């Protein structure tokens, strides 16, 4: 018998828990030749802002041990162009599209984005990217110093303000660059978030010692890939013990085993990120690996596995 793979994230019903993470799957068109996109549980778009953003200068990425740094700078065509050109072909796949959004300077932009997306039926849910470490304040040429997700009160205020303008499932994406991610997750839950996704990238710096210069043009970037996985799994586990809303776990998932780590730690769904760059068909391979695991373990429903970490006390 086939195990049950469907999971719920707020009002959103996913046929399976394997999603692709924001910024690592383009708008899906780049992956059509390599895999059957219809098999995915959900697709999270590249983050959209109200106005188009050119992004940061190159070099924008560099490889690090078992990982990579990126500072793309939220390059995106802006909300209008996204709604006109990108969303319809994405939604046509039948896979729920979770639209990732961010503000550039004024957090009130989140409200405007949510208000407009609330009326768009092709947007199945909204992910609040309050944790991107790479937003350059284009006027001042400096990085935004404190992210919304680095402060519980700011997180609460932001989620509360957008909750008032949309009934869609809201997912708050959290930063690992904090003292207590569980405290921030709690703030998001209290303010009405339907789920949290974690973790965004860890801020990092890589240096070319010959040049004595940073490897990325904007100096620092976000670390992703298998290198960050133990940190991410630990955070999923900590958050799981403090909140009741579902967790979407991510950070260095490259195979079914690493996806399972997150689920056992407490994640209801998982997002595949950097691994999409290494093997564009990896997400569907992870899905079939999950199915095999459940069969072998004779687990009938993946929901039974969530948070099943056995800790001897």
């Amino acid at each position: 018998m086939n195990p049950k793979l469907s999971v719920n994230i707020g009002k959103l019903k996913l046929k399976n828990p394997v999603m692709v993470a924001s910024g690592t799957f383009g708008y899906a068109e780049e992956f059509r030749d390599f895999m059957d996109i219809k098999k995915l549980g959900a697709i999270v778009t590249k983050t959209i802002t109200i106005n188009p953003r050119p992004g940061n200068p190159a070099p924008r990425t560099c490889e690090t041990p078992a990982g990579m740094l990126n500072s793309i700078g939220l390059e995106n065509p802006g909300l209008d162009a996204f709604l006109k050109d990108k969303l319809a072909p994405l939604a046509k796949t039948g896979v729920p599209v979770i639209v990732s959004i961010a503000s550039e300077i004024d957090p009130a932009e989140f409200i405007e984005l949510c208000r407009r997306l609330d009326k768009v039926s092709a947007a199945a849910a909204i992910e609040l990217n309050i944790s991107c470490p790479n937003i350059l304040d284009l006027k001042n040429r400096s990085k935004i110093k404190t992210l919304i997700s680095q402060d519980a009160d700011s997180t609460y205020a932001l989620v509360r303000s957008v909750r008032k303008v949309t009934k869609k499932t809201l997912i708050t994406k959290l930063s690992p660059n904090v003292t207590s991610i569980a405290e921030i997750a709690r703030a998001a839950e209290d303010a009405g978030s339907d789920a949290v996704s974690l973790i965004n990238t860890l801020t990092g710096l890589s240096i070319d010692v010959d040049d004595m210069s940073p490897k990325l043009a904007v100096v620092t970037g976000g670390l992703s890939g298998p290198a960050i996985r133990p940190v991410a799994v630990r955070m999923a586990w900590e958050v799981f013990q403090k909140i009741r809303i579902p967790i979407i776990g991510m950070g260095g998932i490259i195979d079914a085993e690493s996806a399972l780590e997150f689920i056992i730690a407490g994640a209801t769904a998982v997002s595949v990120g950097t691994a999409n760059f290494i093997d564009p068909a990896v997400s569907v391979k992870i899905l079939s690996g999950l199915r095999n695991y459940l069969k072998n373990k004779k687990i009938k429903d993946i929901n039974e596995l969530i948070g099943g970490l056995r800790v001897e006390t």
Partner: protein
Amino acid sequence: MKKILLQEIARVVANKRLGGDHFKLVLRSKGIASSAAPGQFIQIRVSAGTDPLLRRPISIHRVGAGTLELLCEIVGKATMILSEARPGDELDLIGPLGNGFGLGCAKAPVLVAGGMGVAPLAFLAEKLSKLKPLVLIGARSKKQVLCVDEFRKFGCKVMTATDDGSLGLKGRVTQLLENVLKGASGPRVNIYACGPRPMLKELSRLSVKYNVPAEISLEEHMSCGIGACLGCVVGTKSGFKRVCKEGPVFDAGEVIWQEE
């Protein structure tokens, strides 16, 4: 026509050391080899594990009947691992990627290579062999001048420039190019180039000065190679473009050059 991208497991047919740190890999490939065009590249997975983690972009040097040839230089861990690949080994490839050189309007093609820039230009020279392209190769010294015999086999005239004067003109390949452009008469010259950024920047200046079109192949750090990560952008007159998707070949006049 929509281009189809393939993920292929390719068997190594041969791996020949060319002296110095250069080597040529021949891979068995059906799909990618049959649809590849000059200037396109593949993304090659060097390790099944996490070190190196990301694929490496490598330009297509030649295609044969069911084979792909890659010309590489050992510059780091990934190329070191590739240099040790043995016949029978399997490599995971994605390709053919990017937009190659435009072949349509060439009448008197001049191919300009700096160092490893010869790699994609050999494939191009073969395609353009009826036009007997002029090939200009620049390198640090004689040892780094590659593929001369191959270009001659395609009927190309080859001229060289080396920094130390050990082969051909002592100086830059762009000086050779300027000499050619000064003396050009007859059919309109088209420049095709691949090499380091400073060379391409100077070449772009010359293409404006002598009013000849130039197509240049750029390199940038890549993560995905398929246009998803937005990592490998270059500044152009119409905004940032992805080197892996809109490139790697660009019109020289389109690119905005940073101060070196």
